[in-house]
């Protein structure tokens, strides 16, 4: 009897945990996208107004932001400075693959960041401004979509976790 009770509690807790984890991933994606957009906005300013070298601009653009997005930009900045023979595109690809599962981004967003890397630093500041603005616009669209999905799915995942757990417990008992 006790064994059954403990087992049921464990099943319920695990199922709820999975539900809450899914919900938290759902919440993280728009947050990460929002933070990336904010960092890109700062990066654009550092490039256009301060003419800072790319590694310095990328390193400074995370001011006021923390979490995985900061780690991403800081890692990119460090590699830009230390591995000058790599292009920004190669560096962004490498850092993104290292941070898979930490940054809650989907493949269209990752693609946009790859393309951003391909155009960073190679043109004059006016073109850089245009290009970063375009990337920000695209990411804003993804963010709106991610926010809509978050509102739709967060509660659903939580309830699904709890209710799924309860259902398994009932079936097993």
């Amino acid at each position, binding site marked *: 009897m006790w064994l059954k009770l403990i087992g049921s509690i464990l099943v319920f807790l695990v199922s709820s945990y999975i539900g809450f984890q899914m919900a938290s991933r759902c919440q993280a994606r728009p947050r990460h996208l929002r933070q990336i957009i904010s960092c890109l906005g700062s990066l654009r300013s550092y*490039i256009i107004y301060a*003419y*800072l*070298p*790319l*590694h310095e*601009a990328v390193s400074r653009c995370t001011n006021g932001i923390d979490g995985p997005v900061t780690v991403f930009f800081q890692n990119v900045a460090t590699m*830009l*400075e230390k591995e*000058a*023979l790599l*292009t*920004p595109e190669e560096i962004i690809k490498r850092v993104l693959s290292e941070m898979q599962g930490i940054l809650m981004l989907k493949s269209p967003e990752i693609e946009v960041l790859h393309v951003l890397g391909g155009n*960073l*630093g*190679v*043109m*004059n*500041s006016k*073109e*850089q401004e245009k290009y970063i603005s375009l990337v920000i616009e695209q990411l804003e669209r993804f963010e709106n979509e991610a926010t809509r999905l978050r509102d739709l799915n967060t509660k659903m995942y939580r309830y699904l976790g709890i209710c799924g757990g309860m259902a398994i417990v009932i079936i097993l008992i």
Partner: protein
Amino acid sequence: MTVTNILSESILEKYIYPVLPVRLVTMIRAVPAAILANLTEIRLRINRPLLLVLGNTDIIVNPMGRVITKYDEAYLCNQDDVHKTLQLISKNSLYAFEQELKMGFLTIDGGHRIGLAGQAIVEAGDVKALKNISSLNIRLAREVIGCADKIMPYIMTLEGHVLNTLIISPPRCGKTTILRDMIRQISTGSRLYKGLQVGVVDERSEIAACKNGISTVDLGVRTDVLDSCPKAIGMLMLIRSMSPAVVATDELGRAEDIYAVREALNAGVSVLTTVHGNEINELLHRPYVGELLEHKYFQRYIVLSDVPRVGTVEKIIDSKNNEILWDKTSK
């Protein structure tokens, strides 16, 4: 190993190798140190041999870095070499060098200038940018402490003032190196004269070799540097803000530079500057600079050449009496 060898090697290791692709670094490293001691330029041209310029002469190397004479055995630079070098120089930030690219050169740490040639993009008669860059010329800047020793007595008055001085020389004859040492000596002072406040307008970051606005070479204890600022604006800014006794700048040429020099001289500030040229007579016919010479704004002309070696003082001339105060041939 001599002091010059060690000096050249340290310049190459510290400033030049970090901006060259590994393949080129390996080749240059294989060249004997005694040859590298005289290295003044490294020239990269797409599909042409890698040239190492040693003062008045140049050498080519094979892919193993051995010095050779036959062009068909020479290592030919490719597009990747030039692109990778540009990438390393700009640290993937070409936009940050927009202004420099328009003028056809970049300056790296240590004050070493890198000249560029390629295809110009022209808009409304002005060069907007350079694309398809096909040639690079890496010019090694050397700090030679004391190279202006023999010039100093001719440009200082007994009262300790600096005479307005124009250094005249063709490219690669050591103008900037001598100007840098003059600034250092004027700023520091000696037992014969006291140090003076010197303002340096370093438009191309070559004189002071600034990194993050701080000079990386010895310019004396009383020197203020305005880095990467156009000469004309910078000279007037320094006069208003830092009240220098001497203003130094490099390579006069444009109409606004001449106006600024005139303003500085009228404000009672001494001016040390340089101009490209071979002879004074040749400069007299040149627009803008010719005016300054005609009206004798400068009191001393120092003519340099690279014979027998870079930085040779040919003549020191007193402009007032047109008298040659010092001549290489009659020393």
